[in-house]
């Protein structure tokens, strides 16, 4: 576990996507593991990590990976081991990897506000902050998230990141956070 592969480049002196800092990539078995690892690492003040799409060799169709400055590898591995959520693999990367969209748009329905991020939408009653609808998406946890979240307020509901498992949940969480920010 945690062995280092030089998958993308055999030349460690290649320029990386973040200037001259070498980048590593943490590969996990599921989006859910990535979501928890990201939260763990951010709690531990690893500020320079980013969630990105894994390279094609590692893709299943619904997956995330974590990019990190390779100089922080030892600390990151230790934190993840202590949390019981070690990556399946660690690789070098020096190519641009796609990041999940963080852009949101809104639509005002008077009493209700809809916030959209990529393929996911959440609609909230403005006065009560109650979640009244969730739409979009295609992964299996979207109907599950809707069942859990609808009828709860933005403040009392679990976040999609806490209870979801897929990229659709990850994207819904971006809209969820934006709704919280707009209606704070």
């Amino acid at each position, binding site marked *: 576990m945690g062995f280092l592969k030089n998958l993308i480049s055999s030349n460690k002196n290649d320029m990386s996507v973040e200037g001259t800092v070498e980048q590593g990539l943490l590969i996990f078995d599921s989006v859910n593991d990535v979501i928890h690892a990201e939260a763990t690492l951010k709690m531990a003040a690893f500020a320079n990590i980013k969630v990105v799409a894994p390279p094609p060799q590692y893709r299943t*169709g619904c997956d995330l990976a974590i990019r990190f400055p390779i100089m922080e590898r030892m600390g990151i591995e230790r934190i993840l081991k202590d949390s019981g959520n070690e990556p399946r693999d660690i690789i070098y990367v020096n190519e641009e990897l796609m990041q999940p969209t963080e852009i949101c748009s809104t639509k005002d329905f008077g009493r209700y506000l809809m916030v959209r991020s990529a393929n996911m939408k959440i609609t909230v009653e403005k006065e009560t902050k109650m979640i009244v609808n969730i739409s979009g998406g295609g992964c299996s946890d979207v109907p599950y998230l809707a069942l859990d979240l609808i009828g709860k307020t933005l403040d009392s509901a679990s976040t999609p990141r806490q209870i979801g498992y897929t990229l659709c949940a990850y994207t819904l969480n971006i809209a969820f956070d934006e709704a919280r920010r707009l209606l704070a």
Partner: protein
Amino acid sequence: MKTMLLAGTIPDQNLSLAVGTAQLQGTSIIIDGRSFSLNRGTAAMIGAVCATADFLGDTAPECIIGGDIGTREGSREVYRYLIKHLPKTHADTLCLHYIIPDIGLHNQVLTAVRKMQAKPVMIADAGFMYVAKASGQAPFYDLFLPDIGELAFLADEKASHPAYTRGFLTRLEAEPAELIKKTHSFGNAARYLCVKGRTDYICHEGAVIQQVDEPVVEELEPIGGTGDTVTGMAAALVHHGYAIPDACATACRANRMAGLLAQPTPATQIHEIIARIPDALNRVLSEHDCCSTQQNEFIFQGVQP
């Protein structure tokens, strides 16, 4: 007798796999003796198929449903069932829906389809559409039904999931024709696309061939499941014998009409829309002469069957 096969997942942690004929009963569907509420997603799609098939006098669809809240187990059960049973199954129409994308298992499903005695009409939406595109196998399908955000994903040659789609949706909505062209040119389109949005676009080989923009019911956009009901109605109409473009146009119009009849708010739930489908279909089919056959489809395109 013609057979329609629907596959997808429902958020039931106690369910491994349910296989059987679906029945619509009030706000639930019954499959294999189990009751599932008409929630958004595959349940809503099946509900719309049942309502439409019943309206048309057709037999109810056969369903393969995995219980999955996102942990992949139910999705894998569905993939494995399809891989094992499709080669010896007869189906005229196969509609594939919510599932965790898995490129390897998806490609095995397509291998199983190729072993069937006759290839069914292949319809994909939601997770199955995502994985069809991510695997580079989109042209194997006859119909995709993306919304505008998912169209942007199909048009993005690098994105493996809509979460990675580049570009700003507000701008994209104003330029669907460009996205439709890109989707086709990158080989990420099914034979037909039905793009669901403020205006619905029915497309073939990168060009818009029909548009539906009335009635306008703004409140439908935030209601979870309104895209799934279009997919269900379109699939049932195709299975009945409608040409794919006419099935899509009829489904889009009927979905808007069902929404209008339900007098929705952004808080309305999808079972309230599904309950209006028979009335909506009746009104739409009375107003529009959309009873073309598969043969007419080819005449419409100017292509020999």
